[in-house]
């Protein structure tokens, strides 16, 4: 199923119903992260792409986490995000941070940032990223990400690096990807 059938998020979501209200109960209060808003921390802590079943399609970490911690974060993010419906915001408080997420078909694209960061900028950064994937994979679908996982990392690195937004021009990113593709 293509991710970007319609770019409007309202139409892509199905309402998950009554469980949604409990969302906040899943929020763990205490942070295991180092304290926030220090300049030694990247703005983006991690980027996750997960499907509804909780399978990770991409995990990009911009901080040091050990493997157990990564697994825990992946599960918590899934629990927090999947219970939300279209009436909810695209932002969830998460430990001492926040997740900015957007759902495309069965996939959740999540970016974890500092509480002071600009929500809408990251929300659109996700969309920009998805549009690039969509061009690059010609109507991208979940399976493209599975079979070409190693290329998805390249796309991510072109657009986000060291936890910061690196390049925002779709034209420039695609041109570069095309050039790399020609080197195969």
């Amino acid at each position, binding site marked *: 199923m293509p991710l970007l059938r319609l770019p409007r998020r309202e139409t892509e979501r199905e309402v998950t119903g009554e469980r949604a209200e409990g969302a906040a109960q899943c929020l763990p209060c205490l942070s295991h992260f180092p304290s926030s808003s220090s300049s030694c921390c990247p703005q983006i802590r991690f980027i996750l792409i997960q499907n509804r079943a909780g399978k990770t399609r991409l995990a990009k970490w911009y901080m040091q986490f050990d493997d157990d911690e990564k697994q825990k974060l992946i599960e918590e993010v899934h629990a927090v995000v999947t219970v939300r419906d279209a009436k909810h*915001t695209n932002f969830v408080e998460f430990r001492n941070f926040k997740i900015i997420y957007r759902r495309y078909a069965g996939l959740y694209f999540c970016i974890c940032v500092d509480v002071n960061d600009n929500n809408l900028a990251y929300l659109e950064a996700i969309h920009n990223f998805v549009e690039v994937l969509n061009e690059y994979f010609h109507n991208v679908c979940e399976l493209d990400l599975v079979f070409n996982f190693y290329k998805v990392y390249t796309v991510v690195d072109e657009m986000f690096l060291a936890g910061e937004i690196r390049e925002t021009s779709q034209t420039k990113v*695609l041109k570069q990807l095309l050039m790399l*593709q020609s080197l195969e």
Partner: protein
Amino acid sequence: MPAVSKGDGMRGLAVFISDIRNCKSKEAEIKRINKELANIRSKFKGDKALDGYSKKKYVCKLLFIFLLGHDIDFGHMEAVNLLSSNRYTEKQIGYLFISVLVNSNSELIRLINNAIKNDLASRNPTFMGLALHCIANVGSREMAEAFAGEVPKILVAGDTMDSVKQSAALCLLRLYRTSPDLVPMGDWTSRVVHLLNDQHLGVVTAATSLITTLAQKNPEEFKTSVSLAVSRLSRIVTSASTDLQDYTYYFVPAPWLSVKLLRLLQCYPPPEDPAVRGRLTECLETILNKAQEPPKSKKVQHSNAKNAVLFEAISLIIHHDSEPNLLVRACNQLGQFLQHRETNLRYLALESMCTLASSEFSHEAVKTHIDTVINALKTERDVSVRQRAVDLLYAMCDRSNAQQIVAEMLSYLETADYSIREEIVLKVAILAEKYAVDYAWYVDTILNLIRIAGDYVSEEVWYRVIQIVINRDDVQGYAAKTVFEALQAPACHENLVKVGGYILGEFGNLIAGDPRSSPLVQFNLLHSKFHLCSVPTRALLLSTYIKFVNLFPEVKTTIQDVLRSDSQLKNADVELQQRAVEYLRLSTVASTDILATVLEEMPPFPERESSILAKLKKKKGPSTVTDLEDTKRERSVDVNGGPEPAPASTSAAVGPLPAFAFPNNPCISAGGFEFVCKNNGVLFENQLLQIGLKSEFRQNLGRMFIFYGNKTSTQFLNFTPTLICPDDLQSHILGPSPHRHITKPVDPTVDGGAQVQQVVNIECVSDFTEAPVLNIQFRYGGTFQNVSVQLPITLNKFFQPTEMSSQDFFQRWKQLSNPQQEVQNIFKAKHPMDTEITKAKIIGFGSALLEEVDPNPANFVGAGIIHTKTTQIGCLLRLEPNLQAQMYRLTLRTSKETVSQRLCELLSQQF
């Protein structure tokens, strides 16, 4: 456009992934993986050398297996080998494997670093990019050691490709974050700042992140970035939507770069250069104007991108907190969003308004939205939005609306989500305490809290209500009556029993006159709850009982019977048993006098920070509890009716300032208060030396010319002036090395009859009371002379006058109505009470003299802003002369307590 089909390039990998996907069970998957691992292992160990393609394919399979969550314990060497391949695809897989799998302490790090080094030196932009991305992704200390010197060179080299520059900027940022000590600052820093001017917006985007981080740590060094960022931003926001081509996103020009530039500007105070400042204000106005224009597209991407910039601009406006016009416009814009159909916008508007509420310029504007916010609390579907509404109500609360807000929060509490109940309880308790005018209302509110959400009322909250009741005798009778009535409920929360038990034990006598609440009735009521309570509450009730024995001799025997019962004396709980035994014994052996002494009413609690506020801060984390709460706390100190913290100097510092004793010589201190309202004059004079002053001040900066005159005909030798300065007042001497002491520019020899001059630059960092001391040592004839004087640098020197209308003046006057913001002094006139002289003094003091503001024309009213490096403090003053009594009443209101005190103290000396 490029299109990629399934796993092109590596068929074997695609087949393997398909196989895994087709596995019906976890066991089948593991079996398939083990088969593959065995296959790869044998290939790697095989005699036949693998070609690059096969190596790449197998390493990629290993990576896939790892990403599925399985351990991989081989293949690292093969991955490292791939790094030295000349084919991009092989190199890429090698780098990817290393970025994902190799941790920093790997022994392979040397080999990896070697490969990276070769790629960085290759001059092949693709390979350089891969290498830089690998460093940025791994970012280990070893890598910082190896490349922290090299990466800045690549970044600023003239012939580096744009895309490599982008990667180098962020790679350097990563290294700086991991190991700031290893990244040498140097020539490159100034060149990095100029990347803000780069033609390639991608380079600017990456560089802005780097510069922002560096500027946070080294603000001075990166100061020039401010004007560059402003002009770059200005070019973006004023551009037509087509100008930036690739960087226009849904008709919004470079939204992410705009956001980053606005964030960079938030590392600094408002620009000092009026031209830059004007240009920035223009940008911010343009952004606010654009929000009012009809959208260029109906797509949510368009409005999101546009609003991302808008919200960041508002953050900057709030950060600067200096342009009332912009603040109010921002507030109105957010007000529109409060009713927007997009939940995201409503949420963000609530969040952003919370910070606006703490600015004195926009606090009132925020308050006008109270009904919308209350409505949000009742109707929003998303709990996180409701939570923001609670936060905003809390932030906008002041004495004028506290009753309404507390009532709304209480009623919301009845249906609130469990996840946020405790926080609401804390907030209600804090607001009720802070803004209680009527303490009966406070007691009612807290008892309501316990009734509605008893389980969420933490110990801090009920401790606090008891502290307050004990410290305020006007509310004790009411509290006793109210808890007594509340306890009548058949099922009441245990927290209520605790509060009730404690308060009746202390103040039950105040209601004992009423037969409906006679001592016995009180006791029976409490005791009817006893058996349902937990051990700590029962222990507390036992103390109440023994207090009753003292308060009400008539129930003594009843209570002794209870204490004597087996369930008390032989209670399994040691604490209860001990209390029962000791209290029973005490009630039996002690005389009435002793009982009265031992069981005397609790003394008032010493005042300290509200424990509830501390708890809220702990809960929310220091970053989310805003400054507002701190200022609110300061204002609420007097809530317990305890003595206000004595302002250390209001009453004491009259007359000459204390002298600074030096061992050898009598030292004379002059200065005093005579320089408060003037800037020039003679500071000090004795038979030998005269010190004259000329000074000028602008905003938070000042310059002082000091003239040393030798009154004798003999040379002064080793003439050494030294400046001793408190931390919050930076002072240094103009000259080649600014932070050196005063000695540098003054010749150590001052001829007879000669005068030498010296310049001191002053910066007010924050408000202060202590003035810098000028110490002068020199030899005259055979004797060593030592003189110390205080330099008359007082807080009011950093005043900028503010003109305002009568209406504005009284509106602000009312806003500064918290008791801690106001300082008043009534004093006797020391000089003839002449109107014109008084006016001149007020102007000399630095504030504007406002005519026709005070309804009483005999009074004097002034306004101004104290500029310090970190903040600006609005100040209002009013001087009321009383000619008959030859007295003045001086009232100062400022947003900062210490400033009010200091200004009042300084000005009081002038009349």
